[in-house]
């Protein structure tokens, strides 16, 4: 078994267009959620979201690329460039042949579906652009990353709703740990903030109309975000031999399925995923200093997640910190675990715990240290990132300092 480290990170999300901007916003407890700027917003009941602002595809991509890149692919390519350039890896020869890209997304090219359904249903057009299919397919982003960076090894896209990125990163980790690949590009992206995307979520009646307030007694639902988080996972000795800067170690993971309900979370399934990640990483629960929560801000998730953490950690649950950065960047659905991994890296490297903002009233069912409203300086050596998806599919990743 090989050790696996992260040697590059990149992102674009409502808090910033880079990792450094995102870290700064997380430290300051900035709220990236605001009024939605999308077509027909007046026909939406939910009018807020964590939208990426100031990201213009025009000028960044040429005409041919624009016709092939849905917004979720555009985000992915921007974040991948930041991550791979930071890592300093150049993929050629044997390294290129064996390295691949595994990404998560729940919806893929949602706005491409939306735009073209509009064209044929609303506007009555009878033809669509020839690239609709290659633009909207869920693996488009992974494919374009592979083409731009010459990654010829195992490459695919994972889709497990809100756990997509964590499942993708777990797969990439397993490949590097087993020796199958020397390096993998991984993470995920999502871009559902268009009329059809928000309208679909509205239907489920789980969305907040005003704010995402995880763990707060007056929380009233989730708020959608958009963006991407991309990482370079690299075999430790490979990274060390070339003198790469190591951000942290990926220590282990676990994936479980509730096998019970299509939307309601299960304490047992979540607890098994958390304890499984600890066991896989050979980490004692008492070593965990911080958990980046799934923390969606729904009534059901937050209390179930806190109960699962209490079950797994016992008395130590009251000593560790657990925060939900969705309060700041919104819920990036299939991309959320990737952006949230940044809060874990910031905790390990900078000793700064990102806060749960919007926290107003303690909830006895969420009686943990949720790092309310203000970031905190704290030295932590082991952190977890939780993701618990609709469909009962859970994935937890453990990271530690190296």
């Amino acid at each position: 078994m090989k050790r696996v480290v992260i040697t590059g990170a990149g992102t674009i999300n409502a808090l910033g267009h880079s990792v450094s901007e995102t870290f700064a916003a997380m430290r300051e407890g900035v709220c990236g959620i605001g009024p939605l700027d999308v077509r027909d917003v007046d026909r939406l009941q939910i009018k807020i979201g964590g939208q990426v602002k100031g990201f213009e595809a025009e000028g960044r991509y040429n005409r041919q690329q624009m016709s092939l890149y849905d917004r979720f692919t555009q985000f992915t390519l921007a974040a991948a460039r930041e991550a791979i350039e930071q890592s300093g890896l150049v993929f050629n020869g044997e390294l290129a042949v064996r390295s691949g890209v595994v990404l998560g997304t729940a919806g893929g090219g949602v706005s491409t579906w939306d735009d073209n359904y509009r064209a044929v249903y609303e506007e009555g057009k009878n033809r669509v652009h020839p690239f609709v299919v290659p633009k909207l397919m869920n693996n488009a982003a992974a494919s374009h990353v592979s083409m731009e960076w010459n990654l010829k090894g195992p490459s695919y896209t994972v889709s497990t709703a809100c756990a997509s990125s964590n499942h993708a990163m777990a797969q990439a980790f397993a490949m590097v740990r087993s020796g199958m690949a020397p390096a993998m590009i991984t993470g995920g992206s999502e871009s559902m903030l268009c009329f059809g995307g928000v309208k679909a979520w509205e239907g489920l009646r789980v969305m907040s109309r005003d704010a995402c307030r995880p763990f707060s007694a007056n929380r009233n639902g989730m708020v959608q975000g958009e963006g991407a988080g991309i990482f370079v996972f690299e075999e430790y000795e490979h990274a060390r031999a070339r003198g790469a800067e190591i951000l942290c170690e990926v220590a282990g993971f676990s994936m479980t399925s509730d096998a019970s309900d299509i939307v309601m979370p299960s304490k047992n399934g979540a607890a098994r995923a958390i304890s499984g990640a600890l066991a896989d990483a050979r980490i004692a629960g008492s070593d965990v200093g911080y958990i980046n929560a799934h923390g969606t801000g729904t009534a059901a998730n937050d209390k179930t997640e806190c109960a699962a953490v209490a079950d797994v950690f016992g008395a130590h649950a009251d000593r560790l910190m657990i925060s939900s950065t969705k309060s700041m960047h919104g819920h990036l659905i299939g991309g959320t675990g990737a952006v949230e991994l940044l809060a874990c890296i910031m905790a390990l490297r900078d000793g700064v715990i990102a806060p749960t903002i919007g926290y107003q009233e303690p909830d006895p069912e969420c009686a943990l240290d949720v790092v309310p409203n203000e970031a905190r300086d704290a030295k932590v050596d082991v952190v977890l990132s939780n993701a618990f998806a609709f469909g009962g599919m859970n994935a937890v990743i453990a990271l530690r300092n190296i």
Partner: protein
Amino acid sequence: MNVKEQVIAIIAEQAVLDPEDVSVDSTLESLGIDSLGLVESIFAIEEAFDITVPFNANNPSETDFDISSVASIIAGIERLRAEQTAA
């Protein structure tokens, strides 16, 4: 713009060339237009002339629309416009 000028404008945009550099004798291949560029050009032609081009990328040579040169494309469009207007 007449049909010829419009087609040349469409093809030139796909090939990232000035329209002056596209002649009616040019083949799409000589202009550097690949298979994706070809289907995009056909889409743009359908939009511009409000016609349906019977083109199947699986078997371009068997299709009843000759794409061997800019001139043959122009001729094909004029024929389709006549047929599809009549129908």
